[in-house]
């Protein structure tokens, strides 16, 4: 297959759309959470201002090369994840580089950012970063386990590792979604999703009270801005995978926005209602509740 160079500007356009959508979505979600607290919440463009401000700070200090590379790794994890899965199924413009990517690559990117972050934050030398990293890595590992099981189950179900093929298999009506064809895998994946969105009850990694604020303790100005950009991309990219794997993908942008928003809301819906688990508790929770479901889904398939 010949590489279509036009894919690159198209992919960048996708990236642009997703970044903006991510910023707005983050603000909007914050506003919704604020409503639950009976507040109005931040203006919808606040995330842009914050990022601009952080890029605009005059000083920044470094703790070493890895400290600098951490956010870059994290961002490339997010971007990579996004670029190797199709955002809009069937659109030649917005399928990105999905021809080249498969589920294994996606899983790798999910982990890649986290690891990079861990290395960078460790370099900062702050004890809270270190604590955050140990908590983060152990929790992410536990949380990714059911996801991996679910992906395994889905791959078994569709007999492919290509995301595009999996989406293609789900077209033709809502009942073709994996959600209905393999509900246990979806349940396991969605439980895992809670664990990866850094929202209660699984946000002890970033918890301001239990430790302030974990790995990014020392990150500031443009490093932080980079991470904020990542926070706009990475969840969306991850949700795109979920959407593609379990909820039939999206064939146009409105569907994309809606599905991403709804999947995102799932974590918010739970997150606002609960306090957070300690790391040992959350690992136990994943092992007790999510992993068996994932195993079961594989067994059933």
């Amino acid at each position, binding site marked *: 297959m010949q590489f279509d160079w036009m894919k690159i500007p198209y992919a960048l356009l996708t990236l642009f759309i997703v970044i903006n959508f991510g910023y707005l979505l983050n603000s909007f979600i914050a506003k*919704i959470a*604020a*409503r*639950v*607290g*009976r*507040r*109005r919440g931040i203006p919808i463009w606040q995330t842009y201002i914050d990022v601009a401000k952080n890029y605009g700070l005059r000083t920044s200090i470094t703790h070493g090369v890895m400290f600098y590379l951490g956010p870059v790794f994290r961002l490339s994890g997010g971007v990579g994840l996004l670029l190797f899965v199709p955002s809009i199924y069937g659109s030649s413009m917005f399928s990105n580089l999905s021809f080249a990517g498969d589920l294994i690559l996606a899983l790798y990117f999910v982990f890649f950012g986290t690891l990079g972050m861990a290395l960078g934050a460790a370099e900062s030398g702050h004890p809270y970063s270190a604590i955050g990293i140990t908590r983060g890595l152990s929790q992410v590992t536990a949380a990714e386990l059911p996801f991996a099981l679910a992906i395994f189950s889905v791959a078994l179900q569709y007999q492919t590792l290509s995301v595009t093929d999996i989406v293609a298999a789900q077209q033709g009506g809502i009942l073709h979604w994996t959600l209905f064809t393999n509900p246990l895998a979806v349940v396991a994946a969605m439980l895992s999703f809670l664990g990866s969105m850094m929202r209660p009850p699984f946000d002890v990694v970033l918890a301001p009270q239990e430790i302030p604020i974990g790995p990014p303790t020392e990150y500031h100005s443009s490093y932080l801005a980079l991470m904020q950009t990542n926070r706009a991309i990475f969840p969306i990219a991850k949700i795109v995978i979920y959407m593609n794997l379990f909820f039939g993908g999206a064939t146009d942008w409105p569907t994309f926005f809606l599905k991403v928003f709804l999947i995102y809301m799932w974590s918010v*819906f739970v997150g*606002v*209602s*609960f306090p957070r688990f300690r790391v040992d508790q959350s690992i136990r929770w994943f092992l007790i509740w999510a992993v068996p479901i994932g195993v079961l889904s594989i067994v059933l398939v």
Partner: protein
Amino acid sequence: MKIRDILSPFTVWKNLFRDPVTINDPVRERPGAPRYRGFHKNDVKKCIGCGTCETICQNGAIDMVPVDGIAAKEGDSGLRPRIDYGRCCWCALCVDVCMTKSLTMSNDYQWIDRDPDAFRFTPGVDKKKWDDAELGYTRPDAHRLTPEERIHMQELGPETRIGSFIEIVKGYSVDEARKEADRCVSCGLCVATCPAHMAIPDYIAAIRDGDYERGLKLLYDTNPLPEVCGRVCTHKCESVCAVKHEGDPIAIRWLKRHIADQVPLDKYRAIVGAAEPATGKKVAVVGAGPAGLSAAYYLARMGHAVEIFEALPAAGGMMRYGIPEYRLPYPDLDKDIAFVKELGVKITLNTRVGKDVTLDDLRKKFDALFISTGLHLGRSTKVPGADHPKVFQSIDLLRRVTLGEDIYCPEQAIVIGGGNVAMDIARTLARIQTKKYGKVGVTLLCLETEDIMPADREEIVESREEGVVLRPGYGPTRIDTDGDRVTGTRFVRCLSVFDENGRFAPRFDQSDEIAISGAMVVESIGQGMDLSYLPDDLQKQIVFERGRPKVDRHFRTSLPWLYAGGDIVQGPDVIHGIANGHAAAVGIDIYLRGKMEQ
């Protein structure tokens, strides 16, 4: 784990569709509550600058500063509080304690500034956006941090006192005095108003502490006649007392008397201290009235030899011969004089300068002279009939009463005049009448209406209680006489006493004439001085101003060795006399020491 514990937390989402409770524009939409203790306001017109707010402020946030356009005057220090918002804690104690209720708080609470030095301002003077705020904290009426009611002084009832010359006012007990002293806010507005600048807040504090020795010492620093002043002082201090804005002023005069009453004479020297080593200089004082005694006392303390020459048989001057005994008992006066004598002042009685000894003799024998001969000549109304022998001068009658003479006193008497001396003679006559006839028949008339009568308020009230009929607002036109008898006096209504420039120029309504009957008329409209003892050549050398010898701030006349003070310089008033005497003593001391150095 109960299933409810998993589902129930999701109830938080019901708020999603409730309106947020956020205030739209909190900066502008949220005025403070009506009682809110926000930024200070001060009604500078009402404020008297007493500084009580400064005293109570535990943060040292308040400074008393002079303000353009507000001059110091009696009862108003001219200072205004400036508040440092780098110190204030908005406790509002300053508002609670404010004597005039001028200091209040608005309900404004927003003040943002880059400059930390900007947070200092004088409320009411520096214009602020909250000056016109209607809401905000003001002291609730029932909320008082300082007691406002004066401690009642035990007095003889009118029925008892009219029958005798026993002192009316009984004086405070130690407990009462302490309570009354407790009311003082120690602002010191009174100090400058008092002609002698007595350290009033300090000696009141001494009463609170029960330290009468300290109190007495403070009294004698500025006033050698505390027993007298404690009874008959015109207490201008009380008229400017900051506490009067809340209720009755502090009974400063009675508290002073209380101190002097508490200490027996034999302890005085130990407390106040003895005279300084003799300087060898000699000073003669003419007249043993308040000014003369005061000057003699301070001169003696400074170590000068002082001799007082007094024409009458006892020292005290007007204090003895003008003021009736029921106001100032002679033993108390004698106590004050005794201590002056104890300091080494020689008092030569029954010696009238100009007659028994000439001024020139004195000048030769002494290094300096202080004359304070007082106002012992009564002034006449000069209306027709005023020269009748049954028309008297109050000052003469009072002197004769003191001297123990039996004065003429019919059943009905008329007193003309509205000052304290008129009250004195009216009440003296009333007492004699009561003794003689068992009832009072004195009518007092004066030009002034009651609100501007020069007499003290309590004199008016008490004389009424004692049965004296007061008819203010009338001027005499004619005294009706019938041979050696006076039958009565005619008066017309006085419309105004002073003209627009404040000068004495009474206007009368001739159509409104009344006739008062009485067999005796006492004129009490002022006194004059008798300076005939001054030799003619001296009289020429001394510069007079409005009929009084002109003196400098040390009460030195135009002659370097001659000082004058008391009523002849200042007009009739005990406390002024004392202040004059003190000032003159200081002046004489400077003069004598200057001479010594030569």
